[in-house]
C-alpha cells in the first residue's frame, strides 16, 4: 500500500516517441497519468492549453492564444516577444469528439499544410495520446525534415564556433 501511495505521489515519467510511420506521416505518442476527460479538457481550454503547449523550459513567449474548439471553429497562436517579429500558427478544427478525438488543419504555410489528429485512449485511469501529422505528400514531409535538419546544422555551426572560441573540444575525440 505504501509503495502504491508513493508511486501516486511521484509518478514515473512516461516516454514520448516520435516515428515516421509512412512516407507522409509522423506519429507522436505519450501516456499521461490521468483520465481522458481531464486530458481532453487540458487540450481544449485555452487557459489550460497555453500552460503546457509552450513549456517554460523552451523559453518561448506566447503573445496570444485563441481557440474556438468546435467543428469548423478556428484557432490562432501568436509567438514572439518582439511584436515586429512574431510567428503564427493557425487553422481550423475539422473534428471534435469530446474525450476521444480532435482533428485540425495547419494553414500557416498556405495549402498543403499537414492535418493533425490526436486520439485520447483511456486505460486504467491513464490516457494514451497518439498524435498523427499527415502531410499531403512524401515531398512535403521530406521538405519539413530537410528544413529542420538544415536549421539544426546552422545552430550547431554557431555552437561549434563558440566552442572553438572557448578552446573546448567537446564531443571531438
Amino acid at each position, binding site marked *: 500500500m505504501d509503495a502504491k501511495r508513493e508511486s501516486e505521489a511521484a509518478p514515473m*515519467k512516461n516516454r514520448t516517441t*516520435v516515428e515516421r510511420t509512412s512516407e507522409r506521416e509522423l506519429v507522436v505518442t505519450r501516456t499521461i497519468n490521468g483520465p481522458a476527460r*481531464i486530458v481532453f479538457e487540458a487540450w481544449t481550454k485555452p487557459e489550460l492549453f497555453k500552460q503546457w503547449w509552450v513549456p517554460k523550459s523552451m523559453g518561448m513567449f506566447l503573445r496570444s492564444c485563441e481557440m474556438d474548439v468546435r467543428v469548423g471553429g478556428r484557432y490562432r497562436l501568436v509567438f514572439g516577444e518582439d511584436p515586429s517579429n512574431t510567428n503564427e500558427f493557425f487553422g481550423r478544427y475539422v473534428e471534435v469528439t469530446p474525450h476521444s478525438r480532435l482533428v485540425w488543419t495547419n494553414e*500557416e504555410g498556405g495549402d498543403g499544410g499537414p492535418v493533425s489528429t490526436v486520439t485520447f485512449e483511456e486505460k486504467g485511469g491513464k490516457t494514451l495520446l497518439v498524435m498523427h501529422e499527415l502531410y499531403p505528400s512524401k515531398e512535403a514531409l521530406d521538405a519539413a525534415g530537410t528544413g529542420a535538419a538544415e536549421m539544426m546544422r546552422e545552430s550547431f555551426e554557431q555552437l561549434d564556433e563558440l566552442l572553438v572560441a572557448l578552446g*573546448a573540444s567537446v564531443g*571531438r575525440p
Partner: protein
Amino acid sequence: MHPILNLMVQYSRVRLDASFAALSDATRRGVLEQLGRSDASITDLAEKFHMTLTGMKKHVGVLEQSGLVTTEKLGRVRTCKLGPRRLEEETAWLERYRQLWDARFDELDKVVEELKRKEKVDGRKKRE
C-alpha cells in the same frame, strides 16, 4: 511554413541561447568533455568534479535544457550522455522534435495533476 519548421525555428533559437548560457560555466564545459569520452552517471560526475549530488544535478539540468546532454533513468541510476549532435544522422531532427514534444507533455502532466487534485478537493467539499 509547416508546423515542424515553424516550431523548430523558434526552438533552435531558444536552444542556442540556452547552449551559450550552459557553456559559460567551466564545470559544465568539463562535464561535456567528460561525456565526450564516455557516458557517466550523475554520481560519477559529482565525484569526478568534487561536488555534491545536488550541485551536479543542477549543472546537468542546465545542460539537459540546452539539449547538449540527454539523460536516461535506468532503475536508480541516471545516465548522462552527449545530446544528439551528429548531423550525419538523418534522424537527428526527429530526436529534436521528440524532445520538443517531450517537454510539452511533461508540462501537460503537471496541468493534469493539478486538475486531478482540484477535482479531488471539490469532490470532498461536495461530500461534506
